[in-house]
């Protein structure tokens, strides 16, 4: 066992970890943040996507100790002040959510994309979410949601 510090969703926390635990295990079992999912355990599906120091990562591919003294944002930390992030709202409004299992990872992926590129083209959105699988929607509505979120973030009065 080893104790590490981690800033998770804006709060500094201390947590005991096993050396062989993944960041995903610490998020789900240590912090009980079950919005981050496990779909394949080998970095293929993207349902465990989180932001690590602002960069998009698969939490199943990072060892817990690698996240020591760093900042992690999960789906539970995306909204501000109890409200929804514009990306979350856009996912609801466009019908981009079906079974919902890919949704947290998709939203984190979209978040990482819009942080880097606030005005992505359709092609850039597709590329931005290319590490996240969805088996329900066919992606069209998800791309639409990210475009809508980008638009609303630039024109908040709408």
């Amino acid at each position: 066992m080893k104790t590490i510090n981690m800033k998770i969703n804006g709060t500094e926390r201390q947590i005991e970890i096993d050396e062989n635990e993944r960041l995903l295990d610490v998020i789900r079992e240590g912090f009980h943040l079950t919005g981050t999912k496990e779909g394949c355990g080998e970095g293929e599906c993207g349902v465990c996507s989180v932001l690590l120091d602002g960069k998009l990562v698969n939490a199943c591919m990072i060892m817990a100790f690698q996240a020591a003294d760093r900042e992690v944002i999960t789906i539970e930390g995306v909204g501000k002040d109890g409200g929804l992030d514009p990306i979350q709202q856009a996912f609801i409004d466009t019908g981009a959510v079906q079974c919902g299992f890919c949704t947290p990872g998709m939203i984190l992926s979209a978040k990482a994309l819009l942080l880097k590129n606030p005005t992505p083209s359709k092609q850039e959105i597709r590329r931005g979410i290319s590490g996240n699988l969805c088996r329900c929607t066919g992606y069209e509505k998800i791309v639409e949601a990210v475009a809508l979120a980008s638009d609303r973030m630039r024109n908040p009065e709408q």
Partner: protein
Amino acid sequence: MAFKVIGENVLRVDGHTKVTGGAKYPADLEMDNMLYGKTLRSIKAHANFTIDTKKAESIEGVVGVLTAEDIPGKNCHGVLFKDHEALCESKVRRIGDPMAVVIAESERIASKALESIEVVYEDLEAVFDPEEAMKEDAPKIHGVDNTVFHFKIRRGDVEKAFEEAAVIVEDTYYTGAVDHAFLQPEAGIAYEEEDGTLTVVAATQYPHFDRIDIAGALGLEEEQVRIINPAVGGAFGGREDLTLQIHLAVAAKKFQRPVKMVYDRKESFLAHCKRHPITMHCKTAADKDGKLLALKARIVGDTGAYASWAVNVLRKAGVHITGPYEIPNVWVDSYAVYTNNPFSGAMRGFGATQPPIAHEQQMDRIAEKLGMDPFTIRRKNLFSLGSKTATEQVLKESVPLGRCLDALEAAMNEKPLPDKDINYLEDLKAQQLKKEGFWNEKIR
């Protein structure tokens, strides 16, 4: 009259919990005093076996190992035929058949203990080709004839039509098994409530069917079993057959503690059904104007080790093999056959997905032989309002196929496919390189 839903943009009720990460899928559930289960699965496609669980049971943290002997009621389940054993008694029929479940204080202990279960297999002759499995001397997977189902259509006189035809195209088409790959691997929890009700929480497509089979396996009345369907992370037909439900229920009852099981992706692939691989032999005839005269089809669906929905799927394949076309003379034989392959069941389309591989290629080849445009030959034969299908169903309601073809033709003619796709692939490669750079640089 104003509609509240039709024509309106309705927000889904579970949207908010799903975008905030609050929605609970079965793997997200936890209870106090919980045990964990892990399944031992067959590594042989067809074999008799004996199993010794003593060593595994003696490991610290293991509370018990379930085998077929622990199923108090009927050790069988299935959506049509009860041909699945919840835990195999003495014979496995496919790779991945469940044989035992270790119940332990932690997931890690349960996984580790699987290695200490001793299994002795006695190989049986296996059959993987459904054509071979249909032969009289083939190994019998369930002790009876391997042909589960035979669907026939006999309409008009196909042989006479073949004699009169201007063109005949005959070939065999194959489709492979496909996995649903729903994103949420199977998971669940079971526990006994204070009033004795046995509750099973698992992502399922048929809570009512699950209840019948769980009650049967436990020897309980249906009213004593409660199924809770939490958020379901995709299904597409792959959650229609039971996987871990009976195992959870038996363990929770036997050990009087909540029990949780979560499959990883590999086990998920082993546990649930696949789309039926189907072989379709089609002989199609048309006159010189491209009007279809006859179709003779032999369809063989590989249902693998268990029947699941094979009857419905191969019936549907048999009905759909004509395509959306009027054909006056039709002869169809459609079979579902047991083999020792992974079992097939429901998956998106339910037997309607495979036939277009055959009938659309047949149409293109007839058009080619007649020197006819592929759109024209389809328009000449398309179902329309009032058409009769090969099974004599009269189409009385919406049949908008003509409009669909019109839209398709317009799109193909007016908007040639952009060569953008090639750039996109190169972009992806560049992206991948960047990503690899990121890994090397950032992750220590």
